[in-house]
């Protein structure tokens, strides 16, 4: 992408672009100054920010986008701080288990950094949290979260499955900006990879509750495989088998069970629903 080309293109459709951007020279200068401070990867965001300032109008969706990104950042802080403590807890078996949770911790930290950079580049102020901001016992619901491996993985699974639903629910808020939307989708599918792996880890370690329940990398109906109703809000609604008015069970005369139909589509949750789920984890 070449900034000169973009400015030339805009000049064709909007002769007043340099009034809006000050002057071409200053626009380039200010862009160069900004871009020197931020990671290369965030350049599209910085560019978006430059035009958002130039074309800002009362109906510009910038506030909605910044709110959405800060909401995502809040959830990423929650997850990152959880895995930092989890990996340091000493109760995760060394080998594949510890390696996997370390990989996930690193991804969540990367998401925090990415979103902070993106929000700053867009002219917003990133929310900020520290280790003391969180209570991973969820006000006593999971008192052994960092001393009992089964509880630790159950909370991890819930965070990931919830994170997937959160990003899915927020994606439409970003539809007006290709760069933010794409980045959010790229985080969304990473959370789904984490969720799938954690679900399989719990199954292989025989940690599913109640006994006899099966948990797979994908979500069957609204089953969590976790022995407390405290996590149920993260799974309710996943049993949905109707998509855009189309019944998926046995669709097209194919033998598709309700269980498979529910697994085939993950379901979004609203910001309010997600907030209600994660609030107990904030100190």
């Amino acid at each position, binding site marked *: 992408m070449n900034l000169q080309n973009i400015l030339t293109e805009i000049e064709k459709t909007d002769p007043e672009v340099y009034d809006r951007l000050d002057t071409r020279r200053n626009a380039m200068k200010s862009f160069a100054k900004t871009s020197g401070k931020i990671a290369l990867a965030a350049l599209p965001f910085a560019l978006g920010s430059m035009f958002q300032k130039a074309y800002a109008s009362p109906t510009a969706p910038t506030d909605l986008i910044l709110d959405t990104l800060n909401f995502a950042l809040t959830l990423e802080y929650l997850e990152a701080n959880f895995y930092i403590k989890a990996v340091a807890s000493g109760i995760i078996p060394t080998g594949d288990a510890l390696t996997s949770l370390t990989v996930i911790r690193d991804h969540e930290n990367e998401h925090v950094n990415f979103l902070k950079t993106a929000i700053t580049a867009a002219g917003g102020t990133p929310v900020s949290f520290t280790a003391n901001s969180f209570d991973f016992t969820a006000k006593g619901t999971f008192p052994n979260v960092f001393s009992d491996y089964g509880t630790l993985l159950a909370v991890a699974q819930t965070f990931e499955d919830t994170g997937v639903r959160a990003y899915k629910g927020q994606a439409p808020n970003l539809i007006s900006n290709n760069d933010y939307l794409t980045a959010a989708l790229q985080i969304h*599918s*990473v959370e789904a990879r984490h969720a799938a792996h954690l679900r399989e880890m719990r199954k292989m370690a025989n940690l599913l509750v109640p006994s006899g329940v099966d948990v797979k990398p994908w979500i069957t109906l609204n089953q969590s495989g976790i022995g407390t109703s405290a996590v149920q809000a993260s799974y309710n609604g996943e049993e949905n088998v109707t998509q*855009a008015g189309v019944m998926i069970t046995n*669709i097209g005369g194919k033998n598709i069970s309700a269980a498979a139909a529910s697994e085939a589509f993950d379901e979004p949750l609203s910001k309010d629903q997600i907030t209600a789920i994660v609030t107990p984890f904030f100190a």
Partner: protein
Amino acid sequence: MLNIESKENQPDLIEGMTKSFSRRKFLGVIGAGSALVVVAASCKKTNLGNNNGGVDLGSGDVGVLNYAYALEQLEAAFYTQVVASPYSQISDMEKAYMTDIRDHEIAHREFFKAALGSKAIQALEVNFSAIDFTSRSSVLGTAKAFEDLGVSAYNGAGKLLVNPDYLTIAGKIVSVEARHAAWVRDAITPGSFADMSAVNAMGLDMERKPDDVLAIASAFLKTKINASNLPTS
């Protein structure tokens, strides 16, 4: 039973949803709409040659949904064959999961067919001659390639959609594809569910343009796909 071929029983969802939220209306709500379009145009790469005949996916949201429908057809056909003729010494769990994934992909395929109604592309002919269905490593290697490809395709296609309802539907599917990808990867190499070949140093999964996706998928398709009318931003 729902008869998806009959328009009387299955109203054309695309027509209905498109009417309620046109592209013009959508662009109208963005303050900097024109600037965004120009930025995208400046980034446009040349078409990699999907415009020489073949099945036309169409334009706009319909084109993007047909693009997803094409990929789901490919995946569903692959897993149908995997389950019909499992590789030697497949474990019970692997067979159960392959059957689950087959059903998910069939559900996705049939969903798009029903949702697109009269605008759906034809059934595609696949070419699986490069896959050894008797070999675990060949089947899992192909499954991994298809799932990672599917994830990157949906991630790259989200921005091409105008109707937020379609974006949500695509989101509902892509995370399931990512779950598949994670499991298949772990079945090949434990712990590789989100390794550096899938997730970059910023913690982001891959995203691909339709041209790049179809360049890879076309090796497994006899039917030629024409993506030249798809939106590019």
